Every structure is written in C-alpha cells, then in structure tokens.
C-alpha cells in the first residue's frame, strides 16, 4: 500500500555536483572558528550555527524534493527514514540510522555512521560545550518546518566530546495543518 519511494539517496547523490571533501571540511572548520572569534561565547556559537543551518534548511528542502523524487510521507516515521537514508546521502554522502523511537512515535534518534564535517577536528578544553556540528540540527529543523512540521533537534552524543557515536535527537513538536486559515471573523 505504501507509495513507492526511493529508499536510498544513491541515485540523487550520483546526480548532484560534488566538491572536494577536504575543501568542504576545512571551509566548515573556518566558519566555526570565525564564529568562535566573533561571538566568544560557546553557547552563542551553538545558537548561531543552528540559525545558519535553519536558513540553509528552508531552502534546501525544495532542492531535496525536486531532485530526489520523494513524494508525501505518510507519517513522521517515514519522514525520519527518508531524512536518514535519502537526505543525508544526497547532501553529505553518508547515511544515518533511525533508532530509539519513543512510545508515541514523535521523537527518534538519528545516528550517523560517518560525519564528513569533523575530519581533523579536536576540540580544545576551551570549547567544552560546543556542538561543532550544530548546523546539521538547524538544517533538519528548517527543512521540516517548510513541510509543516515543527521540530526540535539536538545533539545527544558527539564523538568530539568522547562519546561513541554521533547521535541527534529529532522531536516532533506539532504538525501544522496545511489548511488555509478560514476564520470568518478575520
């Protein structure tokens, strides 16, 4: 019964233009470094990275939809799978695993097998509390907001902090109905 949708982003990944991975990693590193210099507070940098990601996400979603041949997802579970298998593959060349669903099916974890943003990175002691890849959280939040899902995305495990994996928690806050606000008194 489920609509036929691509379960992997391989085809989309093959068709998009790519850049040298090292250039990408180093550019991202330079951005984070500059933000640390400009904003000084680690907490502010986390916020700024999230905001930058959000701004990317609200635009990226259309490219994703246009080039991946994804159709409407039936539920949030499918959405999470599509992000993990198709989205990450298409834009970062890696895939994530969806795990740890809560009972209501509104929050889950995305565990990254590889993380192309962190090559060469070692966090110094002064950056304790920095979520180096926070931009990814913002991207997901922004992208989902454009398809009427309000979400909260946070890092729970980060190998740069000594954890054993990269794990993001995606929590669906509410699904905004796609109807027009038909209120007679407005």
């Amino acid at each position: 019964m489920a609509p036929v949708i691509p379960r992997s982003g391989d085809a989309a990944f093959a068709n998009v233009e790519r850049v040298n991975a090292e250039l990408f990693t180093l550019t991202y590193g330079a951005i984070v470094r500059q933000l640390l210099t400009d904003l000084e507070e680690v907490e502010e940098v986390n916020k700024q990275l999230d905001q930058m990601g959000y701004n990317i996400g609200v635009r990226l979603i259309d490219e994703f939809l246009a080039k991946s041949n994804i159709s409407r997802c039936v539920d949030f579970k499918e959405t999470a799978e599509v992000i993990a298998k198709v989205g990450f593959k298409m834009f970062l060349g890696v895939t994530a695993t969806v795990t740890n669903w809560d009972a209501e099916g509104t929050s889950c974890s995305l565990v990254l097998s590889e993380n192309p943003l962190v090559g060469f990175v070692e966090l110094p002691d002064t950056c304790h509390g920095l979520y180096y890849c926070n931009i990814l959280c913002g991207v997901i939040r922004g992208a989902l907001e454009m398809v009427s899902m309000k979400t909260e995305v946070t890092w729970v495990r980060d190998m740069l902090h000594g954890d054993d994996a990269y794990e993001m928690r995606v929590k669906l806050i509410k699904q905004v109905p796609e109807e027009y606000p038909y209120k007679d008194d407005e």
Partner: protein
Amino acid sequence: MATVYNLFIINKSGGLIFYKDYGSAERMDTNDSLRLASLWHSMHAISQQLSPTIGCFGIELLQADNFDLHCFQSLTGTKFFVVCEPGAQHMEGLLKVIYELYTDFVLKNPFYEMEMPIRCELFDLHLSQAVQKERVFILGR
C-alpha cells in the same frame, strides 16, 4: 509557433513572485498578471476543499478552448503554472524542470530573499533554454 504562452510562480501565501511571457499574442500587464495569480491561488485552494476525492491536492490541469493551464504545487507550497496551447504535451515534465531550476538558481542564490519576487538573471536564462527546448522537441515530432 509558440506552445508555452506564459509562466507564473506563486509563493505559498499567494503572492506572484515570477511572471514571464513566452510569446502570447499580447503581453499581460502587471496588474492583470497579479490578479490572475491570486485568483488561481484561491481557486486552487477551493478546489482542494470541494474535490470529491479524498486527499486531493488541487487542480493540476485546466482546459479551455484557446489554452491549457498546467499547475504543479511543490510540497512546500510554491505553485508553478504554465499557460500553453491547447493539447500541448509534456508540460508536467517542463514544470518539474522549472522546479529544479528554481531550486538551483533562485533558492541557492544567497541574495535571493525567500518569498520575494524573483529577479535572478541565471534563472531567466536557464528558463528560456528549457522552454525553447520544449518548443524544439514539439516541432521535431
């Protein structure tokens, strides 16, 4: 012989953000194009509500005696529609190509403000090529 008359792009709140003429008999003035766009936006919304089929996402094709109107709405709510010769083929394909061009040359332009009128030369250029290709393809048959 023109097959595509004009192209409209409407943002998700119903504002016309792009209008281009591809050789209709006379050019529509700005007010008319804005009016037509908001009219279509509302009709599209109403059609979703009135449709007897459950899970209808709005009008995709409107056929008249002297033109066809093909509409494509992305999941993010942006609508693309072309007005073309009656019976013109492959318009769904063209709209999909236009959507891709929009993501490439409009959304990726860092100086483009979301939901605002589109003024991107690269977009115009690629669009003309896509429409031209469509024309050649039809003539070639």
